[in-house]
């Protein structure tokens, strides 16, 4: 969104912005709820933080196609097949909107994708878990998309214009994703014994990784303070996690499913559901590359990229030929 060509790379001029006066002026714009646009002067750290966050978000959408894509060819009805394919396709589209937004900050998509393929860039830890049954597709739509929506709605008001606009589009389109997932769960939980077991098993496996999606607890989060000040982030990890739990527990009860947390209880005074301890060691391991599917996910993306190389080269070669023919004519 907006042109890459218009954006100088973070250049020699930019460090000036780290001057106290300029930083203050930038902060004043942020505080006034002004949107920052691609060609505006911005602190190098703001650019860097956003490039990292938006590209990670884009990578997550693209890698996120894989676990759900795993079930497109096995969807148990044609209606479900069409819905799932459209949903996974949306994720690809969202990845593209987000890469476009990230590019406005001056780093090309090729460079960003390269960071993913070489394992330098991170993406959401949740997509390193396997989809083992059809119920996982329901659980992902309901829980993973539910958690993603909690994260994404505040991002529609992010201080960086292109990111905020991309998120508005993403949120609008994603509203069907969670409903699609929950509908699968409702159908399974109203189904036969095997289907109910499948639904409970999926919930058991996806619940804790979903709580981890919101990131480390506030006390341990390294990026939050500055991101909050710059209005990239408007709620803390723990605040969003709590919102998600409060919204989701009654939905699980409606399904007649049990959340896999013996410590879960409702606090009458605060009006919140209190949850048990999250296994942050597991989270760290998955982030570090040791989740059950990290290697498979990266291998799949690398394979698609490598096997597509000759196609991209052909398209470029054709464009060059046509250009040359036009010039000669």
């Amino acid at each position: 969104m907006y042109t890459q060509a218009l954006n100088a790379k973070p250049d020699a001029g930019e460090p000036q912005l780290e001057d106290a006066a300029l930083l203050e002026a930038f902060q004043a714009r942020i505080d006034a709820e002004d949107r920052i646009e691609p060609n505006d002067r911005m602190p190098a750290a703001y650019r860097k933080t956003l490039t990292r966050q938006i590209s990670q978000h884009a990578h997550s959408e693209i890698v996120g196609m894989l676990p759900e894509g795993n079930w497109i060819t096995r969807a148990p009805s044609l209606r479900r097949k069409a819905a799932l394919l459209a949903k996974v396709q949306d994720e690809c589209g969202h990845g593209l909107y987000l890469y476009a937004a990230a590019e406005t900050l001056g780093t090309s998509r090729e460079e960003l994708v390269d960071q993913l393929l070489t394992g330098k860039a991170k993406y959401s830890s949740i997509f390193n878990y396997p989809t083992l049954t059809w119920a996982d597709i329901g659980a992902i739509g309901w829980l993973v998309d539910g958690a993603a929506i909690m994260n994404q709605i505040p991002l529609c008001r992010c201080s960086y214009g292109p990111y905020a606009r991309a998120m508005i589009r993403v949120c609008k389109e994603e509203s069907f994703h969670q409903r699609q997932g929950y509908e699968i769960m409702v159908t399974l939980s109203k189904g036969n014994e095997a289907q109910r077991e499948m639904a409970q098993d999926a919930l058991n496996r996806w619940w804790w990784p979903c709580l981890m999606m919101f990131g480390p607890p506030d006390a341990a989060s390294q990026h939050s303070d500055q991101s909050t000040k710059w209005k990239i982030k408007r709620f803390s990890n723990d605040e969003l996690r709590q919102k998600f739990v409060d919204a989701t527990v009654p939905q699980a009860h409606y399904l007649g499913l049990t959340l896999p947390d013996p410590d879960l209880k409702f606090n009458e005074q605060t009006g919140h559901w209190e949850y048990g301890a999250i296994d942050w060691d597991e989270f760290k391991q998955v982030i570090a590359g040791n989740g059950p599917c990290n290697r498979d996910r990266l291998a799949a993306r690398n394979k698609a990229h490598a096997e597509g190389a000759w196609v991209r080269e052909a398209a470029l070669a054709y464009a060059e030929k046509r250009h040359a023919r036009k010039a000669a004519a």
Partner: protein
Amino acid sequence: MAKTIRVNETPLVLYTLRRADDALILGHRLSEWCGHAPMMEEDMALANMALDLIGQARSLYTYAGEAEGGGRTEDDFAYWRDERGYRNVLLVEQQNGDFARTILRQFLYAHFADLYWRAMMASKDATLAAIAAKSEKEMAYHVRHAGEWVIRLGDGTAESHARIAAALEDLWPYTGELFEMDASEKALVDAGIAVDLSALRERWRANVKAVLDEATLTTPADGWMQKGGRTGIHSEHLGHLLAELQHVQHTIPGAVW
């Protein structure tokens, strides 16, 4: 316990199922690409084409159920017939292979389907005519999309040219079956319900050739043509495709999904 169904294949039911199976199987093949395309823009495009085809299949299966009159649904036909019961042409069940092969298969089928559905808009069967009107627009876009890629791969690099030329040689023998008609189909043509496929063949060949020429590819001569799909004699690939497609329903039969 649910098991493989035996369809009462009246001429209209059989005719409708053949078109539905073509669309479903090709749509399924395209959907296998999702997440693995050579570029993300093409992931979007292949998924869109798959969704068009799956949508066409659903309308056609629903109509086959009505025409059969036994209360069968789209999923009964898709999930509870085995490979001997499927009626699609062999072309659409061929494996994806590389991007060149997938695009060429799409190109050959789309050129046929575009002409076919355009002609079917005049069918005396109102439901088929309505499905035709919707499908023709979709296939016209597939013609364009696949054609643009055929041109780029044919006239791109030496490697892309070699790959698509090989795909053309391998897939051409499956194109004759697109125009096959048996007695039951000819009766429907006489009744103004179906279209005479042989009348489309020259147009198809000319349209295909025009693009292949631009792509610097040689249109093969019509030699021996493979057939059998329309009567349920398939290649070995279809069984694997169906095993995957039908897996969940067969694991827990009789459930609502």
